[in-house]
């Protein structure tokens, strides 16, 4: 176990170092522009898996949390000229708080009822932002990037590295939860909530915790977005596409292991970027649908499931 932890920490550092190094070696900005989006989806998908995969509460509210992250940044930038790190930290706090509130209100519902309630959350918050003139309302708002920080030559490259660090934080969190008692408790309540309660699993507490962590990570993923696009508009920030993508990436990768959503997000994210450039941006939505259908039929437990099943078949 400890050896694994060291290997994981080493891998994580290597990943961030490699991400940072490439920004100096590669001059062209486009790979980082596209890479940022993929990294952002990894964070979203991993965060989604903590509640949707481990706990089995299928959440369609990823776009709500993402959008809250976006608009927390917009507000902080406009009101205080807050630096990027503050924006991300506050966005995570707001996302976590929202997760707590949403969890308290909706976690008594199960299955499809919970999922529908989370869609409603997206619509409610979207409506609120559309009518909040200070952050631009429905027309959106222009965001001026602060000057680029020292070692980086362009803002997009810096955001790429920031998002890579968020990926590490999200994955480390998911991995910790999965290997801890929290993860086993969530797994138990996913299988049978009443039985979990009878075994002394504090189900409501664990579900709330999953909601808070998942919400905080999703909002953090969205926080750098206004600086990345130099623009924020509710239609884009609360796009249901984020919810669907986070869900699809997790399901395609497999929700039983933290590596699942990472694989799913990389696979889908890379393909989508490729399609957007080579065919059209509409094609990537089609791809999402087709891949989801293929995986539900051929690998219902995702890419990870293909490997895990083989292992369990060997040991009778």
């Amino acid at each position, binding site marked *: 176990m400890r050896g694994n932890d060291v290997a994981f920490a080493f891998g994580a550092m290597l990943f961030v170092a490699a991400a940072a190094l490439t920004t100096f070696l590669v001059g062209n900005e486009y790979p980082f522009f596209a890479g940022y989006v993929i990294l952002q989806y990894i964070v979203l998908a991993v965060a989604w898996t903590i509640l949707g995969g481990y706990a089995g509460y299928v959440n369609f509210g990823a776009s709500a949390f993402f959008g809250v992250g976006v608009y927390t940044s917009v507000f902080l930038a406009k009101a205080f000229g807050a630096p990027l790190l503050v924006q991300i930290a506050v966005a995570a706090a707001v996302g976590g708080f929202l997760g707590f509130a949403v969890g308290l209100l909706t976690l008594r519902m199960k299955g499809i009822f919970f999922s529908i309630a989370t869609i409603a959350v997206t619509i409610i918050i979207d409506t609120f932002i559309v009518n909040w003139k200070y952050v631009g309302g429905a027309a959106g708002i222009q965001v001026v990037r602060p000057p680029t920080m020292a070692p980086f030559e362009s803002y997009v490259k810096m955001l790429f590295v920031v998002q890579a660090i968020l990926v590490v934080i999200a994955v480390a969190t998911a991995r910790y939860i999965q290997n801890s008692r929290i993860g086993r408790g969530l797994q138990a309540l996913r299988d049978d909530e009443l*039985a979990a309660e009878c*075994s002394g699993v504090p189900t409501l507490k664990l579900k709330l915790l999953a909601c808070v962590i998942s919400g905080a990570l999703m909002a953090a993923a969205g926080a750098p977005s206004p600086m990345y696009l130099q623009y924020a508009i509710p239609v884009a920030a609360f796009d249901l596409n984020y919810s669907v993508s986070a869900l699809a990436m997790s399901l395609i990768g497999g929700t039983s292991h933290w590596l699942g959503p990472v694989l799913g997000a990389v696979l889908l994210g890379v393909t989508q970027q490729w399609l957007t450039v080579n065919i059209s941006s509409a094609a990537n939505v089609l791809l999402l649908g087709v891949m989801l259908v293929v995986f539900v039929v051929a690998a219902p437990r995702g890419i990870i499931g293909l490997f895990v099943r083989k292992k369990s078949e060997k040991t009778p």
Partner: protein
Amino acid sequence: MALELKIAGVDAGYGPVKALQGVTLEVRAGETVVLLGTNGNGKSTLMKVITGQVRPTRGTVTLVIDGQSHDLTQLPTDAIVDLGVALVPEGRRLFPKLTVEENLTLGAFRKAARAAIAGNLDFAYESFPVLKERRRQLAGTMSGGQQQMLAIARAMMSSPKLLLVDEPSVGLSPLLVAQTITAIGELKQRLGLTVLMAEQNFHQAVRIADRGYVIVHGEIALADASVAQLRDNSIVKELYLGGVA
């Protein structure tokens, strides 16, 4: 060990539906008490009231351990498990996609139970050898009888003092019902447990019972009856033999 469960004047229900009305019941240390009644009379609701999963609208549920009184209506389920109360839920409610051993480990989720996990696991395998043979098998793929054994063994993993068993006979053949009831009786003897068992199979349940209660439409119709009284009682005959007195 001094232990006493006192339920007094409990009303409980689901929204406008009243499932229990004025239920009073007592279980004392070392006893096996059966709660008899056919389907839909409130047996499971009473079990859920004791474990804090359904909150009563009136009345008290008190667990006295070594002179210390605990108000179960104010405690969350996990804290009640910590006090030494374990429920074998109706219909077994295993974690079907987890293995037998994982199911058992989850039974010891609480901090206090984790300290005793190795000993309790050995005890479970010794009490139910079939579970040891199948410890790597997914719980959902076992037969009904084996699943019932696992459900009981899982509850035992938290080292309970008071074992609640809700309808252990559901979905089992007569032979397996007899085996299950015998297993509960043996566990109780070996560990000095206190048992409250809700059951509708009268003849099997009274085999291991010290006392019994009969519940009809959410009210206790016959309280604190000895086994002999239960056998002779007209309410029991009406319930189980369709009014042939």
